[in-house]
């Protein structure tokens, strides 16, 4: 199990050091600093073995988090834990920065004591933690016995993510379907790989212990219903709109065995914001933009670049925050750009032409052309021609996912599914959206 956990700043100074196991000594702190942080080279592996001690490290902005062990631990668990640790810290004090860590070091030690016992991760749900790690220095007398046992039963209980007795005057929930669409396209316009990784994020403000059921246009479910249903027509029309989900994972509140057997998604949600599910699709993806690059080398000192982007969705919808990044060679000396729409700029520090368009409707196209002057070099190695990448945001789900329903049942309190105000929003963003040139 995890033998120790250290947090360093970018200089390698220790900000937090908590040792859980006797086999980890103080010298481990220095070993990591010397061998990894001060190595001043690209990290070649997130797991480093130094003198039979293994270091798992992740970096958040300038901060290094390292978990140390001498045993054959579950490596996936250690990384998951480190991410979780980051989430918990962010939930408590915001951005993970040197200043914030120094300002909250007492709190961090308190958290580390709670969520890691002898190197074994314990309940690390922020909702539960916030009920008793408050930095108020709770005096034990102030809590009533009921409160105490409520805390402990929540931390250890089956529904560790939600406490009892939550009350809202207005029962309301927000569903965000957030998708990032990833594309790798060849210069000739052939799709080399494309997938959507999506998340359903829910903000729930519901009273009591509500039982929820979530439904979407999952092909498997629709087909099943279609078969069982009476009219062929229903099957046909829904079959067209359903999507094939390659794989999905769920927040721990979802009853996985029920999903496995009936493919229904039922759960008691945590209070506030959380990620209900993640999914991945690869079939019938709507690619919101098509990038058509044209790069011509004119002699050894000049490049001509022309890039056309075409939007490929309903004309009534608007894409936002569009940004096209056209890489330029390292020996670029000057760039002239002409674009029909938006603004384009050559950024020497990033070795790229960045073309920004605020808004663009569907079924439109726009073009940029640039002349890049190069310094003559005797470097034999050719320019690697990194792909042209794109960023954007569109108000629909590129995978075609639709929320069909989210039903809420709370048997003990007197509100019904109809009383709950529900909001659904779809946002499609670019993930790694690249076209080779």
């Amino acid at each position: 199990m995890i033998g120790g956990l250290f947090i360093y700043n970018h200089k390698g100074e220790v900000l937090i050091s908590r040792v859980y196991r006797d086999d980890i000594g103080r010298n481990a702190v220095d070993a990591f600093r010397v061998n990894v942080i001060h190595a001043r080279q690209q990290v070649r592996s997130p797991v480093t073995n130094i003198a039979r001690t293994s270091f798992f490290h992740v970096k958040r902005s300038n901060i290094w988090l390292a978990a140390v062990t001498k045993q054959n631990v579950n490596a996936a668990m250690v990384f998951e834990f480190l991410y979780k640790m980051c989430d918990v810290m962010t939930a408590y004090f915001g951005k993970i920065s040197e200043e914030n860590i120094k300002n909250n070091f007492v709190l961090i030690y308190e958290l580390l004591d709670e969520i890691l016992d002898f190197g074994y991760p314990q309940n690390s749900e922020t909702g539960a933690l916030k009920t008793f790690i408050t930095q108020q220095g709770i005096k034990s007398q102030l809590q009533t016995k009921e409160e105490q046992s409520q805390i402990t039963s929540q931390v250890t209980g089956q529904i560790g993510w939600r406490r009892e007795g939550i009350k809202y005057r207005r029962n309301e929930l927000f569903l965000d379907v957030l998708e990032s669409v990833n594309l790798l396209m060849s210069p000739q316009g052939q799709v080399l790989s494309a997938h959507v990784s999506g998340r359903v994020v829910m903000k729930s403000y519901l009273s009591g212990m509500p039982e929820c059921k979530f439904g979407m246009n999952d092909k498997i479910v629709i087909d099943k219903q279609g078969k069982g249903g009476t009219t062929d027509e229903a099957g046909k029309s829904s079959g067209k709109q359903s999507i094939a989900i390659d794989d999905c994972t769920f927040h721990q509140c979802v009853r996985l065995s029920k999903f496995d057997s009936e493919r229904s998604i039922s759960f008691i949600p945590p209070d506030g914001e959380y990620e209900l599910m993640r999914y991945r699709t690869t079939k019938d993806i709507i690619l919101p933009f098509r990038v058509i690059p044209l790069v011509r080398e004119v002699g050894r000192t000049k490049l001509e670049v022309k890039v056309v982007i075409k939007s490929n969705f309903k004309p009534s919808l608007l894409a936002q925050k569009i940004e096209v990044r056209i890489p330029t060679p390292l020996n670029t000396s000057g760039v002239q750009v002409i674009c029909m729409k938006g603004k384009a700029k050559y950024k020497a520090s990033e070795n790229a032409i960045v073309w920004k368009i605020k808004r663009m409707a569907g079924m439109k196209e726009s073009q940029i052309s640039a002349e890049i002057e190069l310094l003559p070099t005797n470097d034999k190695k050719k320019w690697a021609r990194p792909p042209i990448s794109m960023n954007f945001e569109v108000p629909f789900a590129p995978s075609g996912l639709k929320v069909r329903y989210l039903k809420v049942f709370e048997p003990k309190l007197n509100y019904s599914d109809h009383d709950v105000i529900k909001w659904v929003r779809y946002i499609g963003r670019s993930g790694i959206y690249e076209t080779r040139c």
Partner: protein
Amino acid sequence: MEWASQLCENRGLGSKMTDSKYFTTTKKGEIFELKAELNSDKKEKKKEAVKKVIASMTVGKDVSALFPDVVNCMQTDNLELKKLVYLYLMNYAKSQPDMAIMAVNTFVKDCEDPNPLIRALAVRTMGCIRVDKITEYLCEPLRKCLKDEDPYVRKTAAVCVAKLHDINAQLVEDQGFLDTLKDLISDSNPMVVANAVAALSEIAESHPNSNLLDLNPQTINKLLTALNECTEWGQIFILDCLANYTPRDDRESQSICERVTPRLSHANSAVVLSAVKVLMKFMEMLPKDLDYYGTLLKKLAPPLVTLLSAEPELQYVALRNINLIVQKRPEILKHEMKVFFVKYNDPIYVKLEKLDIMIRLASQANIAQVLAELKEYATEVDVDFVRKAVRAIGRCAIKVEQSAERCVSTLLDLIQTKVNYVVQEAIVVIKDIFRKYPNKYESVIATLCENLDSLDEPEARAAMIWIVGEYAERIDNADELLESFLEGFHDESTQVQLQLLTAIVKLFLKKPTETQELVQQVLSLATQDSDNPDLRDRGYIYWRLLSTDPVAAKEVVLAEKPLISEETDLIEPTLLDELICHIGTLASVYHKPPSAFVEGGRGVQHKRLPARAGSGESAESPDVGQAVSAVSDAPPAVIPSQGDLLGDLLNLDLAPPTSNVPPVPSSMQMGAMDLLGGGLDSLLGGDVGGSPAMGVSLGGAPVGMPAGLGAAPAVGGGLGDLFDLGGGVGVTAGSYIPPKTVWLPAMKAKGLEISGTFARRSGVIHMDLSFTNKAMSVMTDFAIQFNKNSFGLAPAGPLQVLTPLSPNQTVDVSLPLSTTGPVMKMEPLNNLQVAVKNNIDVFYFSCQYPISLLFVEDGKMDRQVFLATWKDIPSENEAQFQIKDCHLNSDAASNKLQGSNIFTVAKRTVDTQDMLYQSVKLTNGIWMLAELRIQTGNPNSTDLELSVKCRAPEVSQYVYQCYELILRN
């Protein structure tokens, strides 16, 4: 709030969040100041002081001098302050054990606190204080907390048992905490169950023989129920524990799989990977024609692909595991090639791993896509990545024949880029392509030759020289090309020198007329001016071949070469199986068994995949293995309780000795018994009572026992001591035979005591046994049988025991063994389970034989073969050992080892170090290569270093034990 405002003024910090100030105090007399503040009356001031202490502790300053002052702050109802003091205690208690006692009272008191959070905090902290005196006080509170009404306290107490066990294992056992912990597996709260499982698993690891985690269908059912309800971390503990279980049959295996598969949809990647581990392992037991087997295979692919959209560090862990899974079950991901395409922004470690998997998945169906990708990668920035991509193109060519031509043309394109390292890498792989498809792509040689000058890496130079030599007849200026290399011959690395020598000899044999001078030159360079023995030897061989029989030389040097195989860097199957059992863990990331990177014995026991149902030995779980290896101290009844093993042992042919073996003249045996004292018995035991075969082998033994010992019976009993000595001397020439040890004590076998040892004499393995009757009645009808074992040891003949064996009589028997018996891997490897029967009962015992028993006489490897094999065995199979305090020089060691069939192939001396290269062959044909380093310069450094390389790395450890045994005796 006086202090706060002061500080704010001083440092200009306005906000309330000013904890960072504690990091900046580095004044002189700081400790003194802190001491005063700690003893202040004001609570707030105290707390601030403790915070400063903790901050100093974090950055590594020694604040242990404040111990009593900090402990004084412990008695507080402020939880935050209490936690800080506890943190301090955990750090410094070990260095101040006497003062740590001061804290005990507070802990004990807190364990009775009405607030469960405080009770848990106390028991959690107390377990972290590694002071013996404190652990004594811990027992009572811990016992209470394990039965606390609050689940939060119980789950903390469960982990505390593991902590206590780490400090004082005996105490935990004595206090009966293990049983309480086992009870917690049935707790109503899932988190308590999960922590109890985690604690038990950890404790069980350090007691490989205990049956602590008594996994049976009932407990498994409890675990599976808790699995649905506990936290993500708890699920990981439970799944990792489940993976150690071996189901009884394929039905149970399937039902567990069915209940584990829902976990594949968990958001936590570690839960997913641990579930994959359980499924991969239990799948082994399912019949392949089962529908469910196919369904399961299909279910595994999507979650594995999903892992690739996790954060990069997790992707890396996932990819390392997928690499194993693809090798074990390629069918799972064969259609998923695209997801392994490298993204421009992937971290380099993810890129390299993806590339590796791409090559493994390459097939005729997807090769076009793969090649296009690889070509793209070859233009990237990272040198390692580009090299690997180029190498991958070569591997595709070798793997998928249809693509070879495309690969070669891609490689030629890359050579045209003139990027130095790309060209060199391409040439190295083109050489391999030539070896795989001879006489097909020679047209490209001209292009290769153009780049001769840019090659500066030995591997590339050697590859190019090989190509020129191999195709000398088609290259007009081959002689000029090779001559150009010859100029700097002595500056080249050995690899290049050897290649150059061979290439020029090839050239000479093909074009003898023009190249006579050249060959003379290279031969003299290699033989006269070089001090590298390999090069010199090769030079001399060529020289003699060429001068005595050029036709033979042609046959030898220009012989047709064997084709190279498709898959090169596959993980050796037994290691792969072991790593599959470790999916998700560090072992699967390093691709090394835990023993290679974990110190001490914890968790390094080998894990194995269960056998497929129907193969007859399905229920051979690691647990059973452990139980069996413990058999010598456990009651013998353990074996009969083991299902299939029972069958094997009870099917014994326990009939009395058959009569076709000539009876041994009893008078002679009795005489010898009388003459020889006990000490000699054990030395000569086997020979005296030996079978006829033994007699023969004694006479003509070249390496066996000195023949002089055969005269022993004539010598009086008084010479026993002398013979003990003599034996020691004589044995140096032969193999070392350990003294007899008691294998079966009389009290466990109704008065029959068996002691024995093993010996190898003249190529025959013998089990030398002494039977002593310590009972009151006569024993008759002896028979012996072995259980299946790792090397197939089995009695070569029936047991020859003089019957009847009267009370207080001892008889010595030497039983010749064969290695053709049934094979089953044992744990430890050299474990042998034996059943002996007499007229009273059947008795079971197990013993361990030195593996040197299995070293055969023709184990001397050819030097070249040795070199090639050494290189060929992957370096992760290499094991390093140290033999301490051994006062032998290299010749003496070599002689000693040779007596046990460990042969020295070559010896090299570098500075003050002798290096012996040795080879060993086992009866089952496994070769083991070893390098033994002996310091010669310094008489004080008497440690020998041993590296063992073997394709079956699990043997290495036993080989080391033999070295140790042989060199010390």
